């Protein structure tokens, strides 16, 4: 693309708040993929759909919609393998209809189903479901990490529904419908509701910020790079969901420089401390004037860095923000959701390195943790989990 970006698109880009500083502005002007003007959210936002049927489940490789509910269930004592199969037929049918903007069968509020807003429903199976099915679980609970302060209230689960859409009312209705149909088989174990930027606020290729102001997801695989990191040959993947409380009161005490040393990236641009652009590859050998590494070896980016494309993870996080306490201290943080082919091979080593030494641990606390196998998608007429439960 040789034409100059229009002033309007550049202004909108800047208004998006993703870039600051002269260097970043220059990059925004010359880098083609940053010139996409932000589209105003219009009526199409409500009617947009993501196909439900396919070899792989939806809600993984797509850009994350603005709102999500992660709903975990505990199977009831009397729910055997055949009952789980009946439940999955029902829930698959609900998801197939609702994601296409059609009411579920027996939908008591059918008018709430007509604006899917890129709704996806992604099913995950915990170790307990495989035990009921009499099969070896592809996933195992994570090892205990020294940084964890896990609360049962946010941990574990036999079945997970990841419900995502660009509209919170759509998520609410879908959550209600699916919970109703799961109730004969399972109890709600926990629900975590989260959000990202609203549609139209930033163009989708921008890395979004978390509640600590950090650009979160810069190193994510994108496009074709997602495949080797995320998808197994049978169309399955694996999901880690961790609730990470942000210690914002403590974070507030830091200077920007302190924050940048903890993260290893510039707060404004997301650029590694060794570079100038968000997507510059971090150079851990680069030294500053004092002869020290420009990116401290205790920084988050140093500890989390992965170069092998097959060992990366796909982060799909959502922010949460509950009710502040009487002192005004927030209850906020991150619903860390990451997809990978194999949790044990890909996620656990990264998390272990972070737990062993990551300065950012001073300002974040994992308070919930769960693992799920995400079975392949299904064809029309089929149902999610038929390979495991049929």
């Amino acid at each position, binding site marked *: 693309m040789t034409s100059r970006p229009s002033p309007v698109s550049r202004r909108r880009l800047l208004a998006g708040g993703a870039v600051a500083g002269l260097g970043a502005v220059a990059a925004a002007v010359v880098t083609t993929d940053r010139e996409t003007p932000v589209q105003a959210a219009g009526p199409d936002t409500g*009617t947009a759909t993501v196909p439900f049927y396919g070899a792989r489940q939806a809600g993984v490789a797509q850009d994350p919609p603005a709102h999500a509910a992660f709903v975990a269930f505990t199977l009831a004592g009397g729910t055997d393998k055949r009952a789980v199969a009946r439940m999955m037929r029902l829930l698959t049918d609900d998801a197939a209809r609702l994601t296409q903007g059609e009411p579920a069968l027996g939908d008591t509020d059918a008018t709430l189903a007509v604006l899917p807003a890129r709704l996806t429903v992604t099913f995950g199976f915990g170790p307990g479901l495989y035990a009921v099915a009499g099969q070896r679980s592809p996933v195992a609970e994570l090892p205990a990490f020294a940084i964890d302060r896990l609360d049962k209230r946010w941990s574990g689960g036999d079945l997970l529904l990841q419900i995502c859409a660009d509209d919170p009312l759509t998520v609410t209705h879908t959550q209600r419908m699916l919970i109703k149909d799961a109730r004969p088989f399972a109890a709600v174990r926990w629900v975590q509701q989260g959000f990202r930027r609203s549609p139209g606020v930033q163009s989708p290729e921008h890395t979004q910020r978390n509640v600590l102001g950090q650009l979160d997801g810069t190193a994510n695989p994108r496009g074709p790079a997602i495949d080797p990191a995320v998808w197994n040959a049978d169309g399955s993947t694996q999901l880690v969901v961790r609730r990470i409380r942000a210690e914002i009161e403590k974070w507030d005490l830091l200077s920007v420089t302190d924050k940048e040393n903890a993260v290893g990236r510039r707060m404004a641009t997301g650029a590694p401390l060794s570079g100038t652009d968000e997507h510059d590859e971090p150079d851990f050998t680069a030294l500053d004037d004092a002869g020290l590494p420009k990116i401290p070896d205790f920084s988050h980016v140093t500890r989390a860095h992965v170069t092998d494309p097959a060992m990366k993870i796909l982060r799909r996080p959502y922010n949460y923000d509950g009710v502040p306490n009487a002192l005004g201290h927030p209850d906020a943080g991150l619903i860390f959701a990451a997809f990978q082919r194999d949790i044990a091979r890909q996620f656990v080593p990264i998390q272990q390195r972070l737990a062993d030494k990551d300065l950012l641990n001073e300002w974040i606390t994992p308070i919930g943790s769960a693992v799920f196998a995400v079975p392949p998608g299904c064809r029309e007429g089929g149902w999610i989990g038929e390979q495991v439960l049929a």
Partner: protein
Amino acid sequence: MRNPSIRRRTLSVTVLAGVLATLGLAGCGGDSSSGATPAPGPSTVAATLTVKDPWVKAATAGTMTAAFGVLVNDTGADITITSAESPASPMELHEMTMKDGKMVMQPKQGGFVIKARSTHELNPGGDHLMLMKPAAAIEAGDEVSFTLKLADGSTVPFTAIAKPFAGAGESYDPGMAMPGSAPASAMPMGSTAP
């Protein structure tokens, strides 16, 4: 369409059936949302009645329950359903009616008539296919087979998935229309049939 809980797909089917049938294009009953895969609609030239989106309310053994869905008549003639059968339970065709100031259900005299090129919704609070006394529990996620018998002697088989459903708790009034039936004592659907 008298019920607010109209399915979008039903709506498009109805519109298409009216507008496009004459063009020979009926049947592409997809919704119009962007990027949506067209939803499967009734077959292009429905020779007879089709049953769309069927479901049945899950129930314990011996408990009255009901099946619902959308009856679609793509033909140029009215179709009358005279009865319904299921291996799961004895069946009746029911309608809802006002009696002594409250809505009760009762057998539908003359069956359900589905007008030419129109749809007829069976839903909680309206016309429905009544399972009078299921021999065994109908559990959520079960698939239950049914057969509709039409006035011309033909039959329409279909399968409905069982859903947990808290509503559809209508009172049953067998009424005077049923020779030899019990006196008209209102009985809520979901209680054990006599």
